[in-house]
């Protein structure tokens, strides 16, 4: 996995406003107005956040007539999720083994 992709995606979700936008979009497509409302922000501010999420490949923009519809592109979050999953598994496994080794060392046998 290309590292910059991970950084890009993790940066995109580093803001509480953007996380609330992603959570809303996880429920289904929404308009810019919906998302501004969800994030308690102005339309221009929502547009800025959505552009950043678009650059990270997390949110896709489509035009349906006069209405701009935003939807989640779940693949955009994958690098972060993969890193989190891999790192969590690594340490959980390691610490389980650490506990077992230390417990064996201390057993009175």
């Amino acid at each position, binding site marked *: 996995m290309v590292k910059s992709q991970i950084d890009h995606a993790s940066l995109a979700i580093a803001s509480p406003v953007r996380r609330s936008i992603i959570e809303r979009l996880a429920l289904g497509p929404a308009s810019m107005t919906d998302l501004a409302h969800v994030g308690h922000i102005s339309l221009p501010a929502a547009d800025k956040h959505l*552009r950043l999420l678009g650059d990270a490949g997390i949110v896709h923009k489509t035009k349906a007539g006069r209405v701009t519809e935003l939807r989640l592109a779940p693949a955009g979050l994958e690098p972060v999720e993969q890193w989190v999953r891999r790192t969590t598994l690594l340490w959980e496994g*390691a610490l389980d083994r650490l506990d077992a080794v230390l417990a064996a060392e201390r057993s009175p046998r």
Partner: protein
Amino acid sequence: MTTVRIEREVAGSLADAFRAFTDVDVLARWWWPHLPDSVYRLDPRPGGSISVRSAIADIGFHGTFTTVEPPTRLAFTWIWTSAAIEEARDTAGGSSVDEDAEQGVETVDIVFTAVTEARTRVLVSHTSTDQLSQTDGVGQGWNDVMDRLAALDPTHED
């Protein structure tokens, strides 16, 4: 930047738990025992290096200790090493001046707390840090994103 935090209570005193991370013979018994060809190198002092590598599995990491405070705290940098990853990067045209900066340096911070004389809580915080070369196109694109993010600082939001 993303941080994974794992907390585990393990058997053993504070000193036992700390030694398990800083004594290469103990580390080898629990870190990757399932990869028996793993080579462990440890120099647990600030500026000293740490590395584990399994050639068979083509996986490993290397880093530098930034904090060594027996028996309560350890911190080190973490760079994954894999011949496959390096090859992929080379074919992608990544001629690097500063390899660490290109690879992305992660950090690991470990805090040991005594629960009882025979039990210790180990809290691991593993962070993926943003490190990219300033000289290539990717780095430049990244700087642009950083600038745009700075403009979106929540404290300045309308």
